[in-house]
C-alpha cells in the first residue's frame, strides 16, 4: 500500500511537529509514505464559506497530487470530512472518486485500517484531556456522541490507552464545540473566543495538563484563547504522543 501524506496548511506553517510525528509514526509502523511536494490545501476554507467554486482549483490540485496513492492519510479530521463528504466543486471523475473514497484521518487509519495493537515506543506520563473535533465526532464518527445516547466508543482513546503512563481527565462538556469553526473564528470573533476559553477552562478544571486532539486547527484556536486567558494548559497532537513524545 502506497500512502500519500497530506499536511494541512496550518500544520505545515504553524505546527510542523504534528506533521513530522505523523510521518515518522507511519514509517515506524512500516508504511510506505510519500509527501507530494506540490500540495497546498483541500479546499475546505472556501467551500465552508459558501464560495464553492473558489474551492475548485485547490480540489483539482489535490486530486492531481494524490490520485496515484492507494490511501491518503492526513492528521486532520475537518480536512478529511471535506474531502470525503463535501468535495464537489470539480466534476466527479474516477480519480476524484478514488481520492474521496481513500482519504483517511490519521486516527481512523491507525484504528480501522492498520488496526495497530501497540505503540511500544510511546510513553506519556501526563493527565490529558481529549478534544474530539466536531468533524471527527459527528462527521467521521471516530467517537460516540452524547446527543445520540449510544454506547461509548472512542477510537482516539483506544489508541491513547496503549500509551504507557497516560491518564485522562474528564471535562464537564466533552462534546461541546470549541468555537474554531474556520472563518467563524474571525467573522464571529467574540463568540468564537468565548467558546474557546470555556473549553480550555473546562479541561483545566478537570485536571488536564495537556489537551490532546487529532485536529490542530481546534488546538491553534484553543491555545490562543488559553494563553490570552491565562489558563495554564499545554497542547499536543495525538500523532506526537503516539510517536513517542514525552512532553
Amino acid at each position, binding site marked *: 500500500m502506497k500512502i500519500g501524506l497530506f*499536511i494541512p496548511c496550518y500544520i*505545515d*506553517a*504553524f*505546527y*510542523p511537529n504534528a*506533521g*513530522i510525528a505523523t*510521518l515518522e509514526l507511519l514509517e515506524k509502523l512500516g508504511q510506505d509514505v510519500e*509527501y507530494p*511536494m*506540490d500540495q*497546498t*490545501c483541500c*479546499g475546505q*476554507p*472556501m467551500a*465552508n*464559506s*459558501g*464560495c*464553492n*467554486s*473558489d*474551492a475548485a*482549483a*485547490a480540489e*483539482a*490540485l489535490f486530486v492531481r497530487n494524490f490520485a496515484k496513492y492507494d490511501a491518503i492519510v492526513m492528521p486532520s479530521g475537518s480536512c478529511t470530512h471535506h474531502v470525503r463528504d463535501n468535495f464537489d466543486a470539480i466534476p466527479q471523475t474516477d480519480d476524484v472518486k478514488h481520492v474521496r473514497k481513500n482519504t483517511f484521518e490519521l486516527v481512523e487509519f491507525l484504528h480501522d485500517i492498520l488496526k495497530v495493537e501497540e505503540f511500544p515506543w510511546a510513553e506519556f506520563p501526563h493527565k490529558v484531556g481529549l478534544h474530539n473535533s*466536531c468533524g471527527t*465526532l*459527528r*462527521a467521521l464518527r471516530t467517537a460516540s456522541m452524547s*446527543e*445520540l*445516547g449510544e454506547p461509548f466508543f472512542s477510537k482516539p482513546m483506544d489508541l491513547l490507552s496503549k500509551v504507557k503512563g497516560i491518564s485522562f481527565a474528564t471535562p464537564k462538556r466533552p*462534546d*461541546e*464545540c470549541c*468555537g474554531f*469553526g*474556520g472563518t*467563524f473564528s*474571525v*467573522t*464571529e*470573533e*467574540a*463568540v468564537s*473566543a*468565548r*467558546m*474557546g476559553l*470555556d473549553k480550555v477552562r473546562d479541561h483545566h478544571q478537570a485536571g488536564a495538563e495537556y489537551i490532546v486532539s487529532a485536529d490542530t486547527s481546534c488546538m*491553534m*484556536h484553543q491555545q*490562543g*484563547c488559553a*494563553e*490570552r486567558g491565562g489558563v495554564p494548559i499545554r497542547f499536543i497532537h495525538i500523532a506526537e504522543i503516539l510517536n513517542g513524545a514525552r512532553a
Partner: protein
Amino acid sequence: MKVKPVNHAKAAEEFLEDAPHLTFHDERLWDMRQKRDQQMHLLPEWQDLRTRASEIKEHTLANLPEYLEQFEANAKKNGIHVHWAKDGEEHNRIVAEILEQHGAKTLIKSKSMVTEECDMRAYLQPRGVTVTETDLGERIQQLDDQLPSHIVVPAVHKLVPDVARIFAKNYNTDPNDNSPQSLAEAQRMAARPVILTSDAGMTGGNFLVAETGTFVVCTNEGNADLSATVPNLHIATLGIERLVPRMADLGVFVRLLSRSALGSPITQYTTHFRGPQKGGEMHIILVDNGRSTRLGMEEFWTSLKCIRCGACMNTCPVYRRSGGLSYGAVYSGPIGAIIDPTFNERKYSTLPFASTMNGSCTNVCPVKINIHEQLYKWRRVLAEHHELPFVKREIMHMAGKLMGQPKLYRTAINGTEVALSTLPRFVLYNWLNPWGKHRELPHPVKQTFHSWYKQNRLKKDKAQ
C-alpha cells in the same frame, strides 16, 4: 430602501460583555440539554421514535394538500370554522374580522410563534383591540417590547431583576423585590381579571390531526386552556405544517416533544380541542406565510418537519453564548438560521454563518432535520446570490486562486514578510485582525513541514 443584513456578530459581542446574563443563559440552556439527555436514556426506543417522527412528517409534507383538505372537512364536521391565510397580512385581517363580528375588543392569547411571524399584535393594537399574552415568558417579552428570544422559553435571556424592573414599570410592584414567588403572584393578580373578562381567546397549537379534524395544544402553565375556554370565542392559529395524518401518530410526537424541549416526560397540559364549547364559537386559521414556497425548495423543505421544541437552541454553543435576540428574527438559533433566510434572504444572510457547523443540533433534533447540513447549503446559496460581504468574497476568491498554484503558495507562506507584502492591506486590517482581539496568534516556527521534509527525506533519498 436596501435591507441591511442582521449583524449577529456585533449583537453577540454585546451579549457576551454581560457576565451574569451570559453565565445564566449558557448554564440554564445547557441544563435543559442535559435533562433532555436523561429522558433520552430512559427510553431505549428513542432513536426509533426520531426515525418514525421524521418519516411521518416527511410523508405528511409530501401529501400536504390531501391531508389539509381532509383536516378541513373533518374540522367543519366538528363545527369548527376553518380559514386559510396565505400570509401574515391575510392572517391578521381574518383575526380582525372575526373579532369585529363579535364586537370583541379584548383578546387573551397563549404562545404562538405564528402570530409573532405575522406581527399580529402590532396590527390589532391600532384597530382598538387590546391583546394580552398569558404565557408568563411571552407576557414579560410583550411588556418589554421584545421578540421572544427562544421558542419555548421566550424570556430565558432575562434574570429575575430584569423581570422585577419590568413589572415595577407595568404593575407598580417594588422594583427591588427579586423574589420569584412575589413576581409570579404579581403576574397572576394582573392576569386573572383580564382573563376572566376578555371578549375572545386565542391559542397557537402543536398538532393538527387530519383524520379527526381536531388539534392539540401542549403547554405547561395552563394558560392556553384558560385562553381557549374562558371566553366563548376561541381562535386558533397554526402553520399548515403542523399536520399529522392520524390520532395514533400523536403518540410518537407527544413522547418526543417535551422530552426534547425541557427534558420533562410530558407537558403539564396536553389538550385536545375537538370543537367549540357549548354556546361558543371556534375558528382555526391555517397559515401558509412562505411555507408552500419552502416546501418547494429541494434542499430546505425538510425544515418544515420542525415541531418547535427548541432542542437545537439549547444544545447550540453559539446560541447559548449570543442570546436569541442577536439573531434579529422571530426564529433564532440553528432552526432560525435555516428558516429565516426563506423569509428574507438579504436580511438574514448572516445567520447561516453564525454557526461552527458542529452538528450537535442535527443530532438532538427529534424529527431529524439535517440542520447543520442545511446551514452549509445555505452558505452556498447565499454566495451564489451575492449575499456575502465583499471582503469575504474577495478573500475567498484570492485564497482559492492561491491554493491552486503551489509555487505561488510556497512563496506566500515561506515568510511572514512575504505574506505581509503580498496580502492587500484590507485583508489584514479588515478581516484577519479580529483573531488577536481575544486570542494569541500561533507561535512562529523555524521551519515549515514542507521545508523539513525536503531537507530530511528528499535529500536523504538522493544520498542513498
